[in-house]
Every structure is written in C-alpha cells, then in structure tokens.
C-alpha cells in the first residue's frame, strides 16, 4: 500500500472522518488548530457537520448532543481547552455517550506554554470531571499509530458507550511522517437503540441523561458503569515492548518520550547496557498486569519512567511494579522535550547507583 506523508493533526482529522465521524465541534487553540482547520474543509464534503463553537464548553456539549442522536462525534483541543471540557466529559460518561476527545497536550498548568508536554496524564486517566468515571485513553507515538487508533477510538466509544480520549503531545500533532491508510474492518458493534433520534415506532421516547433523583438508582448506575470499566480493563489494554527480552533496565514511556527513550536504548545497548522500552498505548486501562509480570522477571533490575511532566504516569508504574524492583523517574516539563543524551545520562546514573 502507498505510503503518504501527512501532518499529525491532519492525519488525526482525516482518520476520524474515515472512521465515520460526522460531527466535529471545536474551539481554536495552539498547537492543534490544524485539526479544526482540516475538518472545516473536509467534514462538509464528507456530509458531516463542522461547527466552530463559541467556547470549549459549548463544543463538548455539542458532542454530547450529536452523540445522543447516535452520530459519531468528536472534539479536539489542547490542555487548557480540555480542562474546560471536563464537565461535558463527565456528563457524557454519566449519560453513557460515545464520543472522542483529542487532547494535543501543551505545557501547563493554566495557560502554560504552547510547546509539547504530558502534564494532563492524571486528568485524562483519572477522569478530570466529577464523579466515579473513567475515559479510555489512547496514546499514539507515531502518525501511523495515531491514524490507526482514531478508528479504534470510535469503535471503543461505541462498543462501551463511553468517551474515549486520544492523548498526544504537541510534537505528534506538528510533525510529518509517512502513513499507510489501512483497511479497518472494525469490530461488531451493538446498534444504538438508545439514541434519541426520533420515536421510530418505539413505544417509548429514548431519554439521555446523567441525572438520577434517587440515591439507590444512582448507586446502581455507578455499579453498572463499574462493570463496564472492568470489561474495558479486561479487553482493551494495549502496549508495546521494545528490546525487552533480555533487558535489565526497563524504560517506561508513552508518546514522544517513548521515541526518545527508544533511541537512548539503542545508544545504551551499544555500550553493553541491556535496556529496553515498555510503551503503554492505553494509559487507561493501564497495562498493570503485563508490567507486573516483567517486574517479576529475574533479569529485570530496575525501572525508569520517562515523561514530559514532573511525574504522573510514574504513579501507575509504581502501582504495577508494586515494590518488586526500584522505579526511578526522569522528566522535563513545561514544553521542554528531553534529549536522548539526557535520558542516557539519567539511565547511566541510575545504573551506577544500582551497582
């Protein structure tokens, strides 16, 4: 199949349309403006709806509305803008509405910077809005994977009737790489018999809400959501292992830092240091079980989480490793991308400490 060169943001937008997204609602913010820009041209041509909303809050509620009618819908934004959408995401989780939220992360907190960062890990994986809910979080590290995961994002959202976050840093959105547009046959999906898309001969009106007046009803609803999250945890974990077979030191990283870690590991291996990379692709559900297995392997001596934050995913690494081996951390933040030599240096320092 032909490899085409795409820019990250545009590949994400195009993949969404190919995945059947027919509603895009957004509000501009750097570094992801190429997503709405591309959508504004392509979406009408694809027979869908593009709306530049008056605010992020409006945009996410438009996604809620479109999803409630059974349409595949999405929004995209960057960190401060995604913070504004959290109320709507919580409502979607409560109302069990599918939808995709792309967060192209930049430096924070607050307005922060416009350069690539990963400071929204907690927000994405713990549910940034109120209540007991989870969003599936997909974290591509290349443009090919970003394009492929957009198809999965819509499928997962529809299968479980739950919002899915695609979490990338600004670099993935801004860079160009070759990608192949693969066939995505998709998975068997339930019909959207719950959609508020007109009476259609039913005896009742479909009613989409996250409100439960009685506490026991609300508890039952929460427990049903919990069962769903357990199913997602069982079915949807994804990760990649690079050079881990004989690795004594395991770097854990996602997105851009995982690529920097890969190059650092190649350099370290040429110095006879057996390092490898464990790359979570789903950040929630986090691949705890597999990482715990790796931690139990006798040749594995220690872990190091590498992030573009002051240390967030490292908490999940610690939960997985569960004290079996030491876990170190190396991070840059605020929009600074770690260099290969920095990661190499941090690994070598940790290595010496361990001897």
């Amino acid at each position: 199949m032909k490899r085409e060169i795409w820019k990250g943001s545009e590949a994400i937008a195009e993949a969404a349309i190919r995945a059947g997204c027919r509603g895009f609602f957004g509000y501009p913010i750097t570094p992801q403006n190429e997503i709405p820009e591309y959508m504004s041209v392509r979406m009408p041509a694809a027979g869908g709806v593009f709306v530049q909303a008056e605010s992020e809050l409006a945009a996410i509620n438009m996604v809620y509305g479109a999803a409630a009618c059974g349409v595949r819908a999405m929004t995209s934004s960057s960190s401060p803008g995604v913070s504004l959408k959290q109320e709507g995401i919580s409502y979607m989780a409560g109302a069990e509405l599918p939808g995709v939220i792309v967060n192209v992360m930049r430096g924070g907190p607050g307005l922060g910077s416009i350069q690539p960062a990963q400071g929204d890990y907690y927000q994405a994986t713990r549910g940034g809005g109120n209540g007991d809910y989870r969003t599936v979080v997909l974290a591509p590290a290349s443009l090919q994977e970003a394009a492929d995961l957009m198809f999965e994002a819509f499928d997962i959202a529809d299968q479980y009737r739950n919002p899915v976050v695609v979490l990338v840093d600004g670099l993935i959105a801004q860079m160009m790489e070759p990608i192949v547009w693969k066939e995505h046959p998709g998975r068997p999906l339930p019909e959207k018999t719950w959609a508020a898309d007109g009476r259609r001969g039913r005896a009742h009106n479909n009613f989409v809400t996250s409100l439960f007046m009685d506490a026991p009803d609300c508890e039952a609803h929460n427990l049903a959501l919990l069962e769903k999250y357990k199913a997602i945890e069982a079915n949807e974990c994804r990760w990649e292992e690079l050079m881990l077979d004989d690795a004594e030191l395991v770097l854990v990283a996602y997105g851009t830092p995982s690529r920097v870690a890969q190059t650092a590991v190649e350099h370290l291996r040429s110095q006879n240091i057996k390092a490898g990379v464990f790359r979570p692709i789903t950040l929630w559900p986090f691949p705890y079980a597999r990482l715990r297995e790796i931690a139990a392997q006798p040749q594995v001596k220690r872990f190091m989480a590498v992030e573009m934050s002051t240390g967030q995913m490292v908490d999940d690494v610690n939960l997985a490793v569960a004290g079996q081996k030491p876990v170190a951390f190396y991070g840059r933040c605020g929009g600074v991308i770690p260099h290969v030599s920095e990661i190499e240096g941090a690994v070598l320092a940790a290595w010496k400490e361990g001897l």
Partner: protein
Amino acid sequence: MKRAVILSGFGGQGVMSIGKNLVEAGVEEGLEASWVPSYGPEMRGGTANCTVILSDERIGAPLVEAPTEIVVMNRAALDKFEPTVTPGGTVFVNSSIVPDPVSRTDVKAVYVPCDDIANELGNPKVANMVMLGAYIGATKALKRETIESMIQTMFAEKAPQLIPLNLEALARGIACGEGT
C-alpha cells in the same frame, strides 16, 4: 543509513519546504522519514527551522542534538547550529546571504550561492531548489532521479511551465554539491 538534518533560515526562504522535499523523496525511495518544525510564538521575518530524519530503520527520537548535516540559509542559523553538527558532518551555507565562513575544521563546508544562482536563472524563488540540489550532490543521500520526478509531479498540474526552471535550479545545485 541514518541522516539527521537541521534546516534553518528566515521564514519565506523555503527551509520548511526543502525539508518536506527531503521527506517526500526519502519515502519515495522506501526510507523511514520524519519532519519536525520548530513552532512557537514566531515572529514575521524571524528564523524558522525544521529537523528531518531519513533512516532505513524505525525512527525513534524525531529531534536530534548532533545533526549529520545542517542547511543554513541565514547568518543566525549558522551561529546557532554550527556548534551542534556531528564531527565529520556537513554544513551547507547559502553563501549569497551568509558572508561568514564555517569556523569549525572537523566538519565539511559546502558554500552554495543559492540566491545568486536563482537570480541568474531569473526567479529568486528557486533558491531553495538550488540548496536541495547541493544537498543531494554532496551527500548522495537520495537519487537525483527521485527529486527530478518529484519536481515533475509537484508542478505538473498547477504550473507545468515551472518544471524546466526547477530542474535547472536543481542541476545547478547538484553541480555545486558534487564539486565539494
């Protein structure tokens, strides 16, 4: 094979598009390729740069600390990136704009009067194509034919009359690069 190139110059000098051309040609030849722009609160007329990696293996870090080559289209770019080039690497200087010589002795310097050649050919816009030619001529990283057919495709629909001009600019650049 792995090459990591930083291309830098004023906005409008075509450094981003030289980078894109390298990626397109690399992909055409079956290589892995990545292109990362500098982005930030850019100023009109300020210096822009991009990083291109061409490799026959999966590309890890898409940014580099020690490029194998740099392409500098203005003086600020030379000052900023000359110290970073890996020893034995190459510095491509647009000598029409940058009067200074490359000061390091452990790198190869290729001086290309891009704007002078472009003006001789009657169109200042092809200065970047001259530089692309010089890069290909000196490094042999990609085949000349690949770039030529890319130029044909690029202009075929919108401006076929510009094809001979761009091919000539490329040829002049290649001659510059090959002689070094």
